[in-house]
């Protein structure tokens, strides 16, 4: 199957990779525009995600600056609503998802012993589609009416009222969806067809498993989102009334369709994080991952269950009791495989021989804080409790615990872990630790008090609030600035490392055992595994 990417042994003296040793890897702007190399494309995705992360983060700081005290100090309420909306869209579609795709591009071929992805040109297109999508989203601030101000969830009828920015957002979402679907097709085909001999499915690194499952989720649900936003578009401009009761439609139907996408979407954003952490912890405990098979089954169960819980985002809509109850039971059920994974990671650490370099700090931080996010999710799954907490800051606290100290910490830990392999240079360990601890303090100071704000009844998506919410909001804003500014330490560390860090080892982490560490030098050459390794 992968003969195209193997070195030819019948007449050509050089394989494609060796040709580069004569001319060097491509360079210049056209290298990046036309690249079909999974490592280059991985790098592009990661830098894109980094840029979007800082843009979305700046929006978050503007939000928290306004919320530092009660009253409207800086922002118009409608601009504030646009900031919360675009912050959400940018972080979900511009930062977290592309970052994980960047990891997939870099690591999946190397970890299964393949030379590249199955469809390298489609891979290039998947990345470059992100640029016009991001530009559309950013430009939507500049059009009359300002950017969409409905929250990232784009509920009608509010979003039907709003200006052309909504149409730009819909187009951006379509483009992003197309990019994700193509990327997922690529990942699934690569994993199913291009594994090296001996690399059976149950011998793959767990990161690869989490990505194949994530890719199936993406293919299943991105078209659903596309359908939902297309119906918004036609309701806005082409006389349909899918979501308007006056025409026989129902705003609630949008919520059902959106969240049928939306709930698997949040698992799309966390399963690769589970994969990354499942590579890091065994490496630093110097012990194999505990219960590999259960981890695979747990990940698959989470993915399957994720399709039947969407109603828990809609407990206050007025669904019949049976609906609310079924969604409650299914949501509580999903805690079981998630808990199994947490226990397995701890069992991996148990009686290991741990050291706590920066990647391991982030992995352990993930373990602690994602678990707390899981607890608040369990609290929210109880319907009567959700009634008092729905659309309050408790929900904001919950999803930031699972997405920031969950997905983002895994991404940060993963970058520290694999940067030596990707760049051949070792990052500054003291700066890495400083970044970690400031992030821990800043993150918890920002988001832990938000649980209390929600319990006290503060609604979300508000630029202003009643006086009893003032104290916790002040601390939350202080934490946000600590957290946000400390990410600059990370940026500095990454850039300084790439430009002039100390030389890294092939097996920089003695406990790491996947193919990129055991078979490939640091930095990994431009073309790797042109001859597939045989896995014994």
């Amino acid at each position, binding site marked *: 199957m992968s003969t195209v990417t193997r070195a030819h042994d019948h007449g050509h003296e050089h394989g494609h990779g060796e040709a580069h040793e004569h001319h060097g890897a491509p360079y210049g702007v056209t290298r990046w525009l036309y690249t079909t190399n999974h490592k280059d494309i991985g790098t592009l995705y990661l830098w894109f995600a980094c840029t979007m992360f800082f843009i979305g983060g700046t929006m978050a700081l503007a939000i928290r600056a306004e919320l530092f005290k009660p009253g409207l100090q800086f922002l118009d309420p409608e601009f504030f609503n646009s900031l919360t909306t675009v912050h959400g869209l940018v972080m979900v579609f511009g930062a977290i998802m592309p970052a994980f795709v960047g990891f997939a591009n870099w690591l999946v071929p190397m970890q299964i012993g393949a030379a590249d992805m199955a469809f390298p040109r489609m891979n290039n297109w998947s990345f470059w589609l992100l640029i016009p999508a991001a530009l559309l989203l950013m430009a939507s601030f500049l059009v009359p009416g300002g950017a969409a*101000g409905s929250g990232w969830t784009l509920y009608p009828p*509010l979003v039907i009222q709003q200006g052309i920015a909504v149409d730009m957002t819909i187009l951006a979402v379509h483009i992003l969806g197309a990019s994700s679907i193509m990327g997922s097709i690529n990942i699934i085909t690569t994993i199913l067809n291009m594994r090296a001999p001996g690399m059976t499915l149950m011998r793959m690194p767990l990161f690869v498993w989490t990505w194949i499952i994530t890719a199936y989720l993406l293919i299943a649900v991105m078209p659903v989102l596309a359908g939902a936003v297309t119906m918004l578009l036609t309701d806005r401009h082409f006389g349909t009334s899918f979501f*308007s009761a*006056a025409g026989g439609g129902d705003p609630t139907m949008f919520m059902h369709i959106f969240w049928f996408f939306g709930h698997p979407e949040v698992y799309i954003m966390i399963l690769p994080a589970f994969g990354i952490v499942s590579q890091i912890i065994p490496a630093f405990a110097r012990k194999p991952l505990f219960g590999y098979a259960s981890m695979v089954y747990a990940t698959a169960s989470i993915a399957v269950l994720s399709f039947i819980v969407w109603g828990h985002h809609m407990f206050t809509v007025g669904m019949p009791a049976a609906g609310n109850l079924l969604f409650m039971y299914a949501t509580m059920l999903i805690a079981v495989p998630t*808990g199994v994974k947490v226990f397995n990671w701890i069992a991996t650490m*148990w009686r290991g021989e741990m050291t706590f370099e920066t990647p391991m700090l982030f992995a352990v931080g993930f373990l602690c804080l994602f678990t707390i996010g899981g607890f608040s999710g369990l609290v929210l799954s109880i319907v009567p409790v959700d*009634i*008092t907490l729905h659309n309050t800051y408790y929900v904001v606290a919950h999803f930031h615990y699972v997405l920031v100290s969950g997905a983002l910490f895994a991404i940060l830990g993963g970058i520290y872990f694999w940067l030596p392999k990707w760049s051949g240079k070792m990052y500054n360990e003291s700066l890495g630790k400083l970044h970690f601890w400031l992030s821990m303090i800043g993150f918890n*100071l920002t988001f832990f008090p938000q649980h209390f704000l929600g319990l006290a009844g503060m609604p979300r998506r508000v630029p202003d609030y*009643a006086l009893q919410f003032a104290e916790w909001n002040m601390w939350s804003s202080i934490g946000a600035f600590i957290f946000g500014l400390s990410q600059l330490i990370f940026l500095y560390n990454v850039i300084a490392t790439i430009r002039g860090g100390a030389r890294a080892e092939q097996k920089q982490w003695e406990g790491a055992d996947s193919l990129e560490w055991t078979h490939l030098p640091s930095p990994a050459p431009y073309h790797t595994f042109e001859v597939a390794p045989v896995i014994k």
Partner: protein
Amino acid sequence: MLSRFPRAAGAATALAVCTASLADYHVDILPPVTTVSTDIYRLHWSILWVCVVIFCIVFGAMFWSIFKHRRSLGAKAAQFHENTVIEVIWTIVPFIILISMAYPATRTVLAMKDASNADITVKVTAYQWKWEYDYQQDGIKFLANLSTPRDQIDERNGPGAPKNENYLLEVDNPMVVPVGKKVRLLITSNDVIHGWYVPQLGINQYGIPGFIKDAWFTIDTPGVYRGQCSQICGKEHAYMPIVVIAKAPAEYAAWAADMKAKMPAPAPAAAAPAESATQTAAAGGAAAAPAEDPNKKWTLAELKARGEKAYANCVACHQPTGKGMPPAFPALDGSKVATGPKAAHIAIVLKGKPGTAMASFAHLSDTDLAALVTYERNAWGNKTGDAIQPAEIKAARK
């Protein structure tokens, strides 16, 4: 390696928190005053205790491992990597814990849905950005707007006025209900999705345009209970609170009679549709003094004075100066609509402008609409001299 930095920072933070007034740092759900909200309160504490116990076990194991199983203490890695028995146990035990939580939660869900046999019913309609309460059996209907003055809110051009104790949680016309009686709410919306959310009553129900959803509560303690809109609904989402006052039944009856007296009189039976949205269809309504005679002729000065107050419905977007916030919220001062033909100005206020944030204000009374259109046409730099009469609004509604 773990540094001392986080411990020191943690201590400093704790100290700072303690030195501030602890009473301002609310950490719990607000005190419940209905059976449902009491159930909610107890369910939350139950699940929280479950989480705390699991937290202690899980984090205990984790931190034990972090501290003991480290290379710097000479640990040597074991190589075990599976154990089916323990995996089965830690799958089944959480499953059983969850079932034990699901049972009481189910009972409360079923109780929350049972709005039958209510003593009174109130129809709640959400608007951008206010609430309307319609006690159909009592013949009362009124709007509840945020009553916090704008100068306490807006600090963008300098410090605002000092904020009062109920900042953002006060309205001009609270919803009053009798204590100890089952109140059923029928909740809907006039425009976009809003959420009627009063935590102490245990209610958080979306108002969905074109649909009616119900909820119920029985308040056991007289008092004032405050809430807010819980679903983002546009620019004033943070500024449409809910105030529910629970009074002893006799006091409630007195309030209801008082409100009824203030309601506009119903239109004469043979005449055209009711004068304003605040009319009720209840037969035999009290003969109130006709405060809002649709055929009354008002002077320009009277209209402008009344209109300046009614302009409160417009000020959030079009601003006290009439300058608006273009391009989303056009200026009225010097605008073509406010200085051009009256009919177009009246039409836009009555029907709104689809595709923009300008909603229909047809729910206001003919008199209020006539007054505010008059005000807009004669305020700031506008000097049309037009005096719009309520009868003109009534005619334009057809």
